[in-house]
């Protein structure tokens, strides 16, 4: 509305009489729009519209007139698609699988990242920048390529790791039915530990040193300073990395898809996203949309739930 008003006054008054917005100072509404639009136009088209479209699709269903061989048409189907999602055992087993994955992998990864960040923040280590870079390097590797690299290390024919373990009398099967989920978890851990470590490390670096001077004078050990002072201060960063990890876990696709190429123990519906893709490939778009919406809702509930839980416990 202000935009329109600004444009009309511009036509009437000469350019000198710049129309200012009510809250004073700053450029004309048209100029502001010109700054915002290059982002907002694609943002609306490729972010908001697809979200709305998925919701709309998920409430539609394919119906047929005149029995099995009649012509099909799509129309409003209410919660039909959602009911199908909730009755789909493959959906629940993919959620269960990914839940187990997340409950184990996320804490392990973040714990390792935290230990590394704390160690890098003490005077105990040498070669700090080398360690920091080494851990961060996997972040440059896309999930598909990381999974290809690791799949060679898992493969019984090619892997030097399997050879090594055979040498000491072990016979690991990284691609077996029980192990393959953890082999995928290892790829995620390898990829993201350094990134999470760097987030926590950056937060540690921004703590003023004086904060622990007093504790040091009182004879507190590095250990005590780390757990009693540093960790509570960087808690928001730890929460943030947890939320990102929860989101990432629920979206898992590339790594298991690559492992599926060499292991028969990964089904085409191994993760929720693989299921959504498989359903969409079968042209059942309405059902695929409903699955995507349910995954998104679960993601939101878990990440917001986690944030609420942690902020309550911190007494905020």
């Amino acid at each position, binding site marked *: 509305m202000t935009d329109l008003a600004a444009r009309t006054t511009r036509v009437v008054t000469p350019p000198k009489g710049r129309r200012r917005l009510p809250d004073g100072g700053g*450029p004309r509404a048209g100029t502001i729009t010109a700054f915002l639009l*290059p*982002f907002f136009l694609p943002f609306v088209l490729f972010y908001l519209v697809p979200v709305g479209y998925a919701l709309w699709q998920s409430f539609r269903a394919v119906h047929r007139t005149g029995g099995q061989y009649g012509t099909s048409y799509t129309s409003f189907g209410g919660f039909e698609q959602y009911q199908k999602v909730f009755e789909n055992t493959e959906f629940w087993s993919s959620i269960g699988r990914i839940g187990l994955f997340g409950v184990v992998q996320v804490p392990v990864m973040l714990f390792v990242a935290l230990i590394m960040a704390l160690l890098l923040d003490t005077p105990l280590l040498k070669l700090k920048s080398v360690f920091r870079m*080494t851990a961060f390097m996997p972040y440059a590797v896309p999930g598909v390529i990381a999974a290809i690299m690791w799949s060679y290390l898992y493969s019984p024919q*090619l892997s030097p790791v399997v050879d090594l373990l055979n040498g000491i009398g072990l016979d690991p099967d990284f691609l077996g039915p029980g192990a393959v989920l953890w082999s995928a978890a290892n790829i995620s851990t*390898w990829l993201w530990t350094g990134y999470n470590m*760097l987030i926590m490390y950056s937060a540690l670096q921004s703590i003023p040193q004086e904060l622990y001077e007093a504790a040091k004078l009182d004879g507190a050990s590095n250990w005590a300073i780390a757990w009693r002072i540093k960790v509570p201060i960087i808690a928001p960063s730890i929460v943030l990395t947890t939320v990102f990890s929860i989101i990432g876990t629920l979206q898992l696709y590339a790594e298991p898809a690559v492992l599926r190429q060499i292991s028969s123990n990964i089904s085409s519906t191994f993760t929720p996203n693989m299921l959504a893709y498989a359903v969409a490939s079968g042209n059942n*778009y309405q059902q695929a949309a409903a699955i995507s919406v349910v995954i998104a809702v679960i993601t939101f509930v878990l990440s917001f739930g986690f944030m609420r839980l942690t902020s309550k416990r911190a007494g905020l």
Partner: protein
Amino acid sequence: MSNARVNRESRGSRTAAMALMLLLAIYFLLPIYFLIVAATKPQGDLATTNGLAFSHFNLFDNLRVLFTRSDGIFGRWAVNTVIYAVLGAAVGTLISALCGYALAKFRFRGREFLFSVILGGVLVPTTALALPLFLLFSATGIVNTYLAVFLPSIVSPFGVYLARIFANAAVPQELIESARLDGAGEFRTFFSVSFRLMTPALVTIFLFQFVAIWNNFFLPMVMLQKESLFPITLGLYQWNGQTARAPLLQQSVITGSLVSIVPVIIVFILLQRFWRTGLAAGSLK
């Protein structure tokens, strides 16, 4: 006495800390080292020689095979990757910078509302958008074109979020005011004054968006059927799936993986200071 105790404690913990970090460093380097070794071997040596030791040095031959296979399709994938990830991130950074700058420096009605919509967008995982985008794009006929991957890739709500923080921190309001008094238009001020002040921040935004596009496998996977449009990741994924029928492809998958990650790793190491500013800003919220 307490000094001696502290010294003993710290020598013990020093050793333990170094040992742990070395172990982790080996873990992070192992797959990359394996890839380097494997990429130098002839196909026949992959299964028959120790995976961690070099054998016949065959890297140049492997590279030749990689780049000539199927009429040089790998080179095409590399060019496509540059278009999607480098060009996409550059365009994305520019539009994020304009928007974030406006949200930081201009006062207007609805500003906070727009910003919270963008923050909500940060939490929407890009994989969740791929399937509905595919349906929309098939209706408009741009599925299976460069645009189908490029256009969604330029949108980065996280980039706008960072740009707003950085613009607030790096561009003093007085500077904008004085440029205005000098009669400079807002765009001129942005490109000649603010842009320069925000450059380090923009490099950070560019890097984040580059990684996001480079990592986004699901979108091209859903959108593209034509091999000639694939980014490297999708191409290698397809080759990797064919190695059971065509075992000779294995060596090209390995060499191709190495060729594609080495330049990115080098750039990352050279630009590492930009990561830390971005990650620190990202964890402020």
